[in-house]
């Protein structure tokens, strides 16, 4: 299976890929999260997967006059892997958008991240993994 995915899932603590996940809070904190991972393009040399997530959550604090926010977030993640002999080349992209429901769905921020992984298999027991990329955050002033 995808080497890069193992890397991603290690970040997520070796959890299995969740194709559909729902997390509902039943008390004061209103939060809904739905995550999907699907195989996207798989050939002999190239493997890829696409992930989406939609979440809403409310932040409400009695001790602050202004901190009553209802945030929506959409998250898109793709992963691509190519393996050549003992080398693994992987690329992941992450993009997310946020909006505040209380402000007529105006966009208040978006983020973009691109990460490239280069892994080298020293032997069956050891792998070295170098990763590098860029992160960009953008906020919209009202």
């Amino acid at each position, binding site marked *: 299976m995808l080497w890069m995915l193992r890397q991603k899932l290690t*970040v997520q603590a070796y959890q299995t890929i*969740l*194709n*559909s996940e*729902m997390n*509902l*809070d039943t008390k004061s904190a209103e939060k809904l999260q739905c995550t999907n991972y699907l195989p996207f393009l798989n050939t002999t040399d190239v493997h890829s997967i696409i992930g989406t997530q939609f979440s809403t959550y409310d932040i409400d604090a009695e001790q602050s006059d202004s901190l009553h926010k209802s945030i929506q977030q959409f998250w898109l993640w793709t992963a691509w892997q190519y393996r050549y002999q003992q080398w693994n080349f992987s690329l992941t992209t992450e993009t997310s958008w946020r909006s505040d429901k209380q402000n007529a769905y105006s966009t208040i921020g978006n983020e973009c991240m691109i990460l490239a992984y280069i892994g080298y298999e020293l032997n069956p027991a050891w792998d*070295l993994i170098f990763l*590098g990329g860029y992160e960009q955050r953008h906020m919209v002033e009202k």
Partner: protein
Amino acid sequence: MQPLFGLQARYQPSSRLKLLFGVPVVLAAEWTACENTDIGMEFLYTTESLCYIRQRLSNSVSISAQYHGSLNNSDATYFENSIYHQDNNHQITYNNITFLQHQIFASIDLKLYKDVGFSIGAGYNLRSNMSLYNNTNKVLDGIKSSDNFFINCSLQFVRLQ
């Protein structure tokens, strides 16, 4: 644009032990302690940490108990610079928020057929702390959220080898 770099090493001395260390994952490990029992943990230098124990009852059924801890930080632009507190006609504006959430839950994982699985679980969000900071990074306010139960179900189509 903010550059990101990291270096990881993955070491699997046997089929019963997997280790990953470096940055951003400081240490992640999964150890098959007994024939059907797995113990795992992960610690990231940034935002998340967790540990779990999983018992495989058969080839198609397993149960697990997990702990998650996550630290979230948002600056004021995230909230359109509108985070403030009115106190005796004096308005204080906050510049960032830090939110620490602990979570425990248990789940049952079922393998339906081949690469398709299903899991269902329930958990508890422990009382969490939220801190607000001003320009000098001094904590101006501390907020505790309510604790609450949650349910979780998932359908899994891709299985890791």
